[in-house]
């Protein structure tokens, strides 16, 4: 029988998010869009509360058999808690910047924050939270679908905007295809191993893989690669990132990425942990291809959101490199990279959201940010920090994240792959530095003159401080948490 009391105690953050989502939905239904701002504030507090609940477990480090909830359906160990805390933080950041965008002229014909927006973000976050603590293919799939369904709606929430509708439709069709591939892989694994929970699938995969099992493994990995937008399943990313409203793009680039990467890592180690050689080359290929294509694809881009989309593909490559090493050090490096990546991309999108004209329209191309150092020096300097950090230039924290990944790769004896990745990151540095060149050395366009609220400044300042050399003060505790999480992940191996 299931011990419900201890199970519920383990999933308290999810329970809080569910309750908050349902109550706020009622508030939104009765109060209408007038109450959108209070609903958003309450949603942020609920996310914050859920984040606080993860702190004790994170601090002390939890792993082993006590972390299973509802039989073997969910597993709330340090790894899940680390990902959850990161997801909640990212979701909070993206909710805070949403009202200013939707209430400005940038939202087009349908101005005004919809009261359902924070509710959908809450449910998407709930889905991600379930995803990262899944230890059964059924839980995994339900969490993934809960997240994806809410994400499709968020992408097309500006109904009057054609680009938003296009982004939503593309995301929906390709996401449904990827879910189908994933589900097919899971059904093959179930058929050939006789179980859906990770432990029994793992037990069924011992020894030589049969063709059906190998197909299942590849389909599952391909479906997950789509969700994290790794090459060759990345085609949807630039279009969706460009078309979706910018706060939603910021959300897509941070929280769901963390969830999908964590999920991929868990599946790779807990389900296919006995068959590392079978998936290592696939992940290694996806990692290197993502790094190279992400760097090359970004070069010709004029639109800043598309550029950041390619940048996220490039970064996913480095994260996958940590995964492909298949060692606790690699997994820990992957988590550290994830944390720093979230800070960098959240900061970049917040800065993009602050580039607005006097009447509130947003700017998205290189031409608009020309000479920003003269007109908006503070934003320009923050963007300079963020771009140099994304490029991995030393005193900034982006360098540290790449360093730990390369260190783990080299320690595992994969020097060739590390060399290819370093070469590609030099190519990637080109467009990050182009960003800086346009801002600091081009004739000022002088169009981005609109003012931004205090919340934007606070968020931008926080991310800038995290990635600045001051961020190194964080690294001992971050490394400690990431090591605990990686250890929990490798309990099964």
């Amino acid at each position, binding site marked *: 029988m299931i011990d419900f009391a201890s199970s519920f105690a383990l999933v308290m953050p999810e329970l809080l998010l*569910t309750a908050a989502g349902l109550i706020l939905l009622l508030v939104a239904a009765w109060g209408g869009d007038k109450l959108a701002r209070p609903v958003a504030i309450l949603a942020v507090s609920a996310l914050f509360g859920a984040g606080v609940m993860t702190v004790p477990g994170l601090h002390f480090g939890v792993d082993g058999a006590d972390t299973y909830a509802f039989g073997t359906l969910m597993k709330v160990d340090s790894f899940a808690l680390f990902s959850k805390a990161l997801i909640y933080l990212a979701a909070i950041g993206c909710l805070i910047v949403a009202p200013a965008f939707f209430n400005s002229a940038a939202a087009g014909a349908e101005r005004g924050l919809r009261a359902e927006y924070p509710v959908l973000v809450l449910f998407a976050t709930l889905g991600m939270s379930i995803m990262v603590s899944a230890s059964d293919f*059924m839980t995994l799939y339900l969490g993934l679908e*809960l997240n994806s*369904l*809410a994400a499709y*709606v968020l992408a097309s*929430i500006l109904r009057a905007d054609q680009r938003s509708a296009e982004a939503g439709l593309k995301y929906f069709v390709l996401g449904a295809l990827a879910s189908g591939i994933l589900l097919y892989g899971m059904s093959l694994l179930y058929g050939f191993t006789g*179980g859906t929970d990770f432990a029994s699938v793992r037990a069924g995969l011992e020894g030589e893989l049969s063709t059906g099992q190998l197909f299942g493994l590849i389909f599952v990995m391909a479906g997950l690669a789509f969700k994290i937008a790794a090459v060759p399943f990345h085609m949807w990313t630039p279009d969706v990132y460009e078309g979706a409203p910018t706060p939603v793009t910021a959300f897509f680039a941070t929280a769901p990425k963390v969830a999908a990467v964590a999920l991929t890592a868990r599946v790779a180690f807990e389900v296919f942990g006995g068959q590392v050689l079978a998936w290592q080359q696939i992940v290694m290929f996806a990692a290197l291809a993502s790094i190279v294509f992400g760097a090359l694809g970004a070069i010709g881009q004029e639109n800043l959101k598309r550029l950041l989309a390619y940048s996220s593909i490039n970064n996913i490559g480095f994260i996958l490199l940590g995964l492909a090493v298949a060692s606790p050090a690699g997994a820990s490096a992957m988590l550290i990279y994830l944390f720093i990546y979230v800070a960098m991309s959240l900061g970049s999108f917040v800065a993009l959201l602050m580039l607005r004209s006097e009447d509130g329209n947003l700017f998205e191309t290189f031409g608009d940010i020309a000479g920003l150092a003269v007109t908006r020096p503070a934003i320009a300097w923050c963007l300079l920090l963020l771009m140099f950090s994304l490029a991995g230039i030393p005193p900034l924290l982006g360098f540290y994240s790449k360093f730990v990944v390369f260190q783990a790769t080299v320690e595992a004896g994969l020097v060739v792959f590390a060399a290819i990745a370093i070469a590609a990151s030099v190519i990637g540095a080109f467009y990050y530095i182009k960003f800086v060149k346009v801002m600091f050395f081009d004739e000022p366009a002088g169009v981005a003159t609109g003012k931004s609220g205090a919340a934007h400044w606070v968020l931008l300042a926080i991310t800038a401080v995290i990635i600045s050399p001051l961020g190194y003060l964080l690294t001992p505790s971050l490394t400690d948490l990431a090591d605990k999480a990686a250890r929990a992940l490798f309990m099964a191996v």
Partner: protein
Amino acid sequence: MIQVLAFYLFAGLVIASAVMVIMARNPVHSVLWLILSFFNAAGLMVLVGAEFIAMLLVIVYVGAVAVLFLFVVMMLDIDFAAMRAGFIKNFPLGIAVALILLAELFLGLGAYGAGGIELGTPDGTAAERGDVSNIQAIGALLYGRYIVLFEIAGIILLVAMIGAIVLTHREAKPGARGRQDIGKQIRRRPEEATVMKNPEYGKGVEL
């Protein structure tokens, strides 16, 4: 023997009709092929002894989902006159499909009477049926061991509903035609709604 025969018939038709779903040029035909593949999947379920799931497939998928699809497809711009034109030409095919379904019915019933196909488990032993019925076994799993998944599925459906409303609902402007104010309708009394008039012969009424 009869089970094996029935299995290959059902399985072959599921695949063939699934191929036709994506090959058919006419979307209405696609939905009809989909219904055929659902029926055959239900037959497969009967063969493995899962009568309840077979019935669910027929009632929920064929009865509700596919018919809903059909309604949606019929809202598309399709030339129905051109579609009906080939009735005589398609008649033999229709009869053939009907005969196959009839044969399947008897085969399925015969196979079910002869006992279901034994499903294997990884360690080589067949799964124990026990003496609980299908519905009891599913209910015990769904509302016991997997209750949390059941609840998550409920939230997914809720999100789908919120999404459909967020993306399609448009607030009607006050005073727009066809806007329904239920409170106002209920408050209305007979004396406000009707007037007695006694018009003169050959003249109209002015209200």
